[in-house]
């Protein structure tokens, strides 16, 4: 295992930024989000979860993929190339890494989404283990470990003065050797410290999960019979119908396609969309298969906890990052749904 001194991080960032775009948690007006690093940027590696998940480096909120020109009856269409070259995602939390894996299943499944896949391949992901999970963290419910992201290219652990550094993939090895001069070998003591932190973080989340009854076992099966359940009648009523929960979610991937045109030219882009919005399923005819907020709230939970796992070998489209739990203005809480559905199952 390697390590990098925190005082050398600035050098490391400069090196990485010279080799591509370096996205990492930056603080601006008190809001921490993944953004391209520039010299002097306020890096915040302490913040547990950025407001928006790092998915937006791979699947940006707005992304132009086509330009067009019209001339009388003539139409010209041209693809806009999606890849901006190399990039690094530095400090991705394990839950967010798992979120990227959830997106991978959708976008890399046949027919592969070319825009996503090229962007995904161009990136190297350095994950940062969590030492001190928040009370709203519930990643362990989905068999994830707060202290470690096995799918990242490099795993990092913050153990005080240094970040431990462990390459996990070929990309990670390549990166490691390219910044070899900034890294040192980690001591056995440091490795032990990281190990302890990993265990204690896992224990914290697991204890919370036990206390709150966040057990997802059987939730998918239970939900299959719960389309008409009373639960949804209760839950939707306070929903404001805003898109916070879906836009800040590391696994939400629904998008819309729209044109922007000026005179004879314009572009077509895709952008995040939310199943919480009435317009999401509204037909041009005025018909809407999900006419009220009840159907939309149900769709969100069903998609994450039932439909998605049915389509992808039981993998839940929730990674327990807790963003929606913290940010929903009216506290609609997916862990309460999990609890209630689990309860329904064991009761029946």
């Amino acid at each position, binding site marked *: 295992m390697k390590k990098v001194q925190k005082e050398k991080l600035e050098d490391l960032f400069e090196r990485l930024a010279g080799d591509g775009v370096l996205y990492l948690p930056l603080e601006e007006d008190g809001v921490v989000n993944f953004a391209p690093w520039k010299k002097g940027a306020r890096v915040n590696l302490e913040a547990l979860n950025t407001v928006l998940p790092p998915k937006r480096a791979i699947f940006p909120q707005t992304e132009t993929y086509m330009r067009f020109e019209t001339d009388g009856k003539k*139409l010209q269409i041209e693809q806009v190339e999606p890849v901006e070259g190399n990039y690094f995602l530095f400090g991705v939390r394990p839950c967010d890494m798992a979120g990227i894996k959830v997106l991978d299943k959708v976008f890399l499944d046949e027919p592969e989404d070319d825009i996503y896949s090229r962007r995904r391949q161009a990136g190297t992901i350095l994950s940062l283990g969590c030492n001190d999970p928040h009370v709203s963290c519930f990643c362990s419910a989905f068999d994830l470990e707060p202290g470690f992201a096995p799918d990242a290219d490099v795993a990092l652990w913050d153990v005080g003065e240094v970040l431990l550094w462990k390459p996990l993939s070929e990309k990670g090895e390549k990166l490691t050797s390219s910044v070899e001069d900034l890294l040192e070998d980690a001591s056995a003591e440091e490795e032990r410290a990281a190990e302890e932190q990993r265990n204690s973080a896992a224990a914290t989340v697991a204890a919370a999960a036990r206390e709150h009854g966040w057990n997802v076992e059987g939730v998918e099966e239970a939900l299959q019979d719960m389309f008409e359940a009373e639960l949804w009648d209760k839950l939707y009523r306070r929903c404001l119908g805003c898109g916070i929960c879906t836009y800040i979610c590391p696994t939400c991937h629904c*998008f819309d396609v729209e044109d922007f045109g*000026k005179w004879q030219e314009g572009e077509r882009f*895709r952008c995040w969309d939310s199943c919480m919005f009435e317009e999401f399923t509204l037909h041009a005819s005025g018909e809407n298969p999900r006419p009220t907020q009840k159907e939309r709230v149900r769709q969100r939970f069903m998609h994450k906890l039932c439909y998605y796992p049915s*389509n992808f070998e039981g993998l839940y489209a929730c990674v327990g990052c807790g963003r929606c739990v913290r940010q929903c203005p009216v506290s609609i809480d997916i862990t309460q749904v999990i609890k209630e559905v689990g309860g329904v199952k064991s009761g029946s």
Partner: protein
Amino acid sequence: MARKSTLLPEVAVVESIRQETPNIKTFRVVSPGGGKPFEHIPGQCAMLSTPPVGEAIFSITSSPTEKEHLDFSIVQTGTVTNYLHEIEEGFEIGIRGPLGNGFPVEEVKGKDLLFIGGGIGLAPLRSFINYCFDNREDYGKIDILYGARTPDDMIQKKDLFELWPQQPNTDVYLTVDKECEGWDGKVALAPHYCEELAFTPENKVTVTCGPPIMIKFVLEALDRMGFTPDQVITTLELRMKCGVGKCGRCNIGEKYVCIDGPVFTYAQLLEMPPEY
């Protein structure tokens, strides 16, 4: 040259436009160099692009046996269709497809077929119907029941009144919802007419498409007539954006209408949440 994105349309030319009803036109679409933009099977769809107002999905109404073009019968109802209804012949549009699963043309070989269509719902059925006529020996008796609000609202009148009735071992039943001047044919709602005609379920597959309310009553009628749910096939339409199972809006439960559909048997629909 980079690989082509699944979301990127090809340019195609609207070769001809035919006014079917006051608000429905049929567009014949070919590649800029002539010929079909792509091959398809009956029941499949395509995304038509009209920059700068966007893209929308439509079922292909021509049979794959028509070698030179694709036809789309389109109701004027939203921004894309408004645009389409304004253009003239020779205009270029974008096209992306084929999308969706299509009708089980192979599986139903040797069976009698009953097509029940309402209004614009004939559009996807027509692709299948003409395919059958072009492979007439593969299919048994063909019954076509088509209803529209008024005779003026009937699409593909040449097929309905001239071509299809001449086909061997084929019956065409036409009906309108209300009495109106100049119509001396049947006046009845399609589901009622269907029951009146007393089709028998033996060795028969029913394919139906039309407004949701018609489908609902047709399904009830067929049930009373002894058709089992796996003998009934329908095709759905939901708001779609990508057409390839990614954008996440056309799902009914775990099924995506754009890739798992739009063609479903009634048996499959019964397994799905009633959200369409």
